[in-house]
């Protein structure tokens, strides 16, 4: 028992010793990310991304001569752990924080940062309500859920589709997107909504729905659900030789879709989605991703870690201009930062802290079953 106690003491003193090992003359930026839990693969990419950006920045002398230090806290992919992580960061005196991925997880930490007066830049949290609370120091570098509906309808319109059928699957995400799209279609006099209904996800046979859709003769079907159903729809449309284009949302952008539908049936399928990291084609993004691949062997698996990188970039830009006081940083991001060249394109923020500017792109499946940026 005595030995056990002493080993505990050693461990504790080690744990306590670690933070003091850092020097005080650095700019501390917090990263709250899902290092463990359901989103762990995203969290690891976020960490790799932000740490590499900081490393490169420090090689160039940091911000105005002061090196940057990234303080990582694990949000465990769940709200309760996120609240603890936020408290830990705040009590360490970190008041500029990047993170996090899941909307519910971010929401649990929002008030803690707000009360501490810290700036928080969320990365993958697309839920609309996060910015409707009007928190003065909350930002995000990802688009909002309702943005996708707007972009989708604008894209369909520009492709020349006028009679639009909207199909969802009754899940919170797909139904929300479908309702956004519906509202957008109804706003535009030139477009007409000819069908709006839900299929039952997880089924195999969608021919009854397809036959009904055929009856209303749409120019295009916009499906807001997920890839297993999108794959089945494509397969069964191909089988019945019905050639109306199907366009999906970003829930239907998994490459398994081509396997389910078959290459022949999937060819020509289009979907609206944030770009995949490999498709970011600005010189800044290309150079950085090359460095990333050189260090980690593979590109990040999704766009969400790249927007975490952008959160770091805008923070660095703000600190360079106005220093590290959270209120100043916040004011700078709200009003002064215009069309900043981020990794994922131009970045500005509106008064609510939402990112302004299009992130969504149109993809098409080519006749070899690959996703190609249009």
């Amino acid at each position, binding site marked *: 028992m005595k030995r056990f106690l002493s080993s505990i003491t050693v461990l504790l003193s080690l744990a306590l010793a670690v933070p003091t090992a850092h020097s005080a003359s650095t700019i501390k930026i917090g990263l709250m990310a899902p290092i463990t839990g359901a989103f762990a693969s995203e969290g690891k990419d976020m960490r790799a991304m932000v740490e590499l950006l900081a490393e490169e920045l420090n090689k160039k002398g940091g911000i105005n001569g002061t090196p940057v230090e990234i303080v990582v806290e694990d949000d465990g992919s769940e709200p309760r752990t996120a609240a603890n992580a936020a408290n830990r960061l705040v009590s360490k005196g970190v008041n500029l924080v990047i993170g996090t991925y899941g909307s519910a997880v971010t929401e649990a930490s929002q008030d803690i940062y707000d009360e501490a007066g810290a700036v928080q830049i969320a990365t993958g949290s697309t839920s609309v309500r996060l910015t409707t609370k009007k928190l003065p120091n909350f930002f995000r570098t990802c688009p909002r859920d309702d943005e996708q509906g707007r972009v989708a309808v604008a894209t369909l319109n520009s492709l020349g589709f006028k009679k639009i059928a909207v199909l969802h699957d*009754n899940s919170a995400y797909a139904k929300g997107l479908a309702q956004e799209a519906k509202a957008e279609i109804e706003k535009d006099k030139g477009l007409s909504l000819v069908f709006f209904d839900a*299929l039952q996800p*997880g089924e*195999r046979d969608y021919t*009854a*729905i397809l036959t009904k859709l055929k009856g209303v003769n749409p120019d295009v079907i916009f499906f807001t659900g997920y890839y297993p159903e999108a794959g*089945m729809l494509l397969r069964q449309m191909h089988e*019945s030789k019905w050639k109306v284009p199907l366009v999906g949302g970003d829930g239907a952008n998994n490459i*398994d879709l081509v396997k*389910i539908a078959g290459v022949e049936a999937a060819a020509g399928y289009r979907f609206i989605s944030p770009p995949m990291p490999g498709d970011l084609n600005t010189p800044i993004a290309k150079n950085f991703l090359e460095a990333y691949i050189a260090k980690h062997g593979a590109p990040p698996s999704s766009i969400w870690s790249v927007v975490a990188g952008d959160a770091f970039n805008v923070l660095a830009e703000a600190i360079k201009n106005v220093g590290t006081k959270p209120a100043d940083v916040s004011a700078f991001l709200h009003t002064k930062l215009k069309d900043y060249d981020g990794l994922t394109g131009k970045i500005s923020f509106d008064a609510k802290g939402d990112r302004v500017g299009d992130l969504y792109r149109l993809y098409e499946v080519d006749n070899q079953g690959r996703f190609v940026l249009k």
Partner: protein
Amino acid sequence: MEEFLQQLTNGLAVGGIYALIALGYTMVYGVLRLINFAHGDLFTLGAYLGFTLLASFGLSGVIGGLAGAGLLVLMALIFVGLVGVMLERAAYRPLRNSDRLSAVVSALGASIFLQNAMMLLYGARPQVYPVRLLPTASFMLMGVEIPFTRVLLFSSSLALMFLLFWFINRTRVGAAIRAVAIDQGAAKLVGIDVNRIISLVFLIGPALGGAAGVMVGLYYGQITHDMGLNYGLKAFIAAILGGIGNIPGAMLGGLLLGVIEALGTAYFAVGWKDAFAFLVLILILIVRPTGLLGERVADKI
């Protein structure tokens, strides 16, 4: 009219699958008065077995075309049938003389076990049959485009059903099954080995479910570990609709349910498709608890 006919064929194709699965429920119920809740998962097992044979054992290179598909169905039929027999030994026979609720709980347990075992073995992501063995041709009939595979799907489920019907009604073993269904004690007295008959029922019912699983895999391509829940539930409704315990009833109930769903989708709301299926179940239970073709047995449950 054209749309109506198209929906009718859509409904019949789905209904054929429901009917084939419903037979498994109805046979087990007829003999043991037990709802085999694991039946839907035996159906899934059939689908995954076909997938394994094609993908992992490399059979996709060896067999091709219709004969290959038939062989695959046959293999799943035999294997899933054997699993059914083992399931009866492990989960139902020890509870044969205890009250009915224990057997139902055991059936639910078997269902959860099978479903999770398949998830652990094959993963939670959907799997896809690697090749298309079935031809993609189609033909026109009265202005309706009918894929050839649909006809094949429908006619093979009909063929399996009639084979079963003939077996039960025209053979000596079939007569023994009917005897055990009516009175186990009396069947024993006239020299029928009741245990063997029950094993046989657990061979045939799951075998048909397994065959349906491979057929779904071959036709629709995508399979998931939890698809047995939905198909199983619908087939269960079909069995009750036709009169549980009654073989022609299960066939009729399955086809009828498929058609009702398709027409409900066509002429009411798409999102309410499952609601129609359950509404039909409620109406049948209120108006005619024994089902459409069920016998009037006062003390069944």
